[in-house]
């Protein structure tokens, strides 16, 4: 019987699931993904994680608990770095240890370290290490790795064309409403696990789309452009997400088809606290593009979120309808 490997639906699930799925299926494992986020999962996570952690990490604890007892292995890789010379976040690096100490009675954890800080070739090393749990040959693992890489690239291509990972992963394709007012291009900047988990961001994506907004994310911006723009910074960004966010926003500020920027951050996120602030300063200095920050945490009330989203979109619409950007009060 195939061994069951559990993948918690949280954090980098939204970025690497297509890769993991192909890889583990190719080496003959059965994949079990935790259920979609519910209140129960979130509550479990909050109860079993240190209070100071950020929402996505707490939620991840909940997803791990959701898988407990249903799988033979848990796949919680240690993401130190996913790009050359950059880091992800200290919490990602310590995640397997946090899980192991906070939750009890867990199946064995596959905590392969993914560290591409020095060289991209370490990805294969990580794959071999993870594959070793399923006794198959090196050659098989290597072949699986290549196939997985291909499906990952296909996935990224689709995302670049404008499909959101949540559309692909949840197989929810957007139902086009007949456009009655102008379609707005709004950039939504945030970590994948905040943007594409419709429970914790309170279905923000659908709400924006319903009000006729075309969503742009950092994943839709060409990597080359991001790197070029991020290269103009005074000091190299050493966070993977930070570089992408800074690069994309700097690029967006030069385009004239962006109607607004929404930054979605989770409360207590260390990286967001700096990146968001730097972006906000840059946007405000340049002027001309409306900018708002939405902070989500486990207490977020949906009404407050709706109000702010609606107000932001209305403001953009009135702005172009009245054609003048000058406040009537001088």
């Amino acid at each position, binding site marked *: 019987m195939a061994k069951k490997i559990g993948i918690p639906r949280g954090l980098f699930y939204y970025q690497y699931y297509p890769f993991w799925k192909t890889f583990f299926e190719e080496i003959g494992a059965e994949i079990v993904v935790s259920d979609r986020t519910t209140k129960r999962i979130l509550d479990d996570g909050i109860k079993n*994680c*240190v209070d*100071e*952690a950020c929402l996505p990490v707490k939620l991840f604890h909940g997803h791990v608990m959701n898988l407990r007892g249903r799988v033979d292995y848990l796949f919680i890789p*240690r993401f*130190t770095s996913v790009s050359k*010379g*950059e*880091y*992800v*976040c*200290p*919490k990602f*690096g*310590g995640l*397997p*240890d*946090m899980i192991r*100490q*906070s939750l009890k009675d867990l199946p064995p954890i596959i*905590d392969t*370290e993914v560290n591409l800080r020095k060289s991209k070739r370490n990805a294969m090393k990580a794959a071999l290490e993870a594959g070793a749990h399923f006794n198959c040959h090196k050659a098989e693992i290597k072949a699986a790795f290549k196939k997985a890489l291909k499906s990952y690239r296909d996935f990224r291509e689709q995302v670049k064309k404008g499909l959101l990972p949540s559309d692909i992963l949840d197989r929810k394709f957007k139902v086009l409403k007949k456009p009655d007012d102008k379609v707005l291009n709004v950039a939504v900047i945030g970590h994948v696990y905040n943007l594409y988990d419709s429970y914790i961001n309170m279905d923000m994506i659908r709400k924006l789309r319903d009000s006729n907004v075309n969503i742009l994310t950092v994943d839709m911006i060409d990597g080359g452009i991001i790197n070029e723009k991020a290269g103009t*910074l*005074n*000091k*190299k*960004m*050493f*966070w993977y997400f930070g570089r992408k966010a800074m690069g994309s926003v700097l690029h967006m500020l030069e385009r004239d088809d962006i109607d607004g920027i929404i930054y979605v*951050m989770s*409360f*207590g*996120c*260390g*990286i*967001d*606290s*700096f990146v*968001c*602030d*730097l972006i906000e*300063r840059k946007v405000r200095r340049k002027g001309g593009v409306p900018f708002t920050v939405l902070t989500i945490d486990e207490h977020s009330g949906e009404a407050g979120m709706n109000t702010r989203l609606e107000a932001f979109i209305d403001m953009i619409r009135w702005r172009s309808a009245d054609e003048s950007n000058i406040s009537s009060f001088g």
Partner: protein
Amino acid sequence: MKVTFPHLGNAYICVKALLDDLGVDYIIPQFNNKRALELGSRHTPEMACLPLKITIGNLIQAYECGADTVLMAGGCGPCRFGYYCEMHREILRDAGCEMDLITLEMPDKELGEFVGRVKKLIGGLNIYKIVKAIKNTTQISIQVDELERLSFRTRPREVKKGSTDRIYKWFQERVLAVRGSDEIKKLIKNAREQLLKVETDNSIEPLKVGIVGEIYTTIDQYPSFYLQSRLGDMGVEVHRPVTVSNWIVDHILKNALHLPRDLSYAEAAKPYLGTMIGGHAQETIGHTVLFARQGFDGVIQIYPLTCMPEIVAQSILPAVEKDYDVPILTIIIDEMTGEAGYMTRVEAFIDLLNKRRERTAFERNRVLSGNRRRVGEH
């Protein structure tokens, strides 16, 4: 050019020695104070960590005194500290403080640029002078830390309460008035002799508590309401492995020269935290294990709210607490922390440690009913 730099505990003494010897004009910001924290909180993002807030406060206060250039250390992540220099640049600009920033860090692009930065700072490149100044600075950092350790030892044992603090504070103030590393060294020696003369009661066996956590909030005494000297007043001997000299020697010099470092803490942390994840998380866990093995009565972890590496450490510490049977108190500090609530927790923790010690002393002399292991031993 008037250089300034943010505070980090006694680091100002080392930077002062360095700049004195290199002949750079500088202003030392006021010691950490309430206004610095308020200024910092006003201008920095809400969720930034406390050290950023308070250092911004330092720099704005220095700007008010006429400083125009900031000297700052850099880093390459993943802890946020590595990006402080850029945050400082942006925040100071928006706060209306026109200041130049010089970041001292290993260059990621070319060496020439780094050399240029140093040249800009000291107006020339006299290698002999630089090496000598670095050597003296390192020595001073080590001596200052020795002095601090001595104060940790003297405080719980002193007969007349407050005598250690008086000498130590006198030294911290007085050092501002002298110039050059030679005079600073003389002053350190003077303070050391005074501390050694403090009348102590050596029959006291004080509680031993280890301090671990994030570097800024443990080294600098202001954010933690001078916890380490207060613990001393409560009759607790404090040990803190993370120091300024340790940072200079181990993290900067040994790394730059590729010398072997003391990694016993990493070894001790291994069963709990496999790799370096940035900041001082590995140190926190490793040192806690080492403290427990040395028979310390308790450990206090201090860190600023939202500090990423320490959150990981905090969630792992309960496992260490259980495995080694050592009480651990975690204290999280931000600009809203109230002194009374905070001290209540510390006092309760110390009471607990005292009781634990009494209890073990009591049990050692008695055989309790049902305590078979002890019966067997006798």
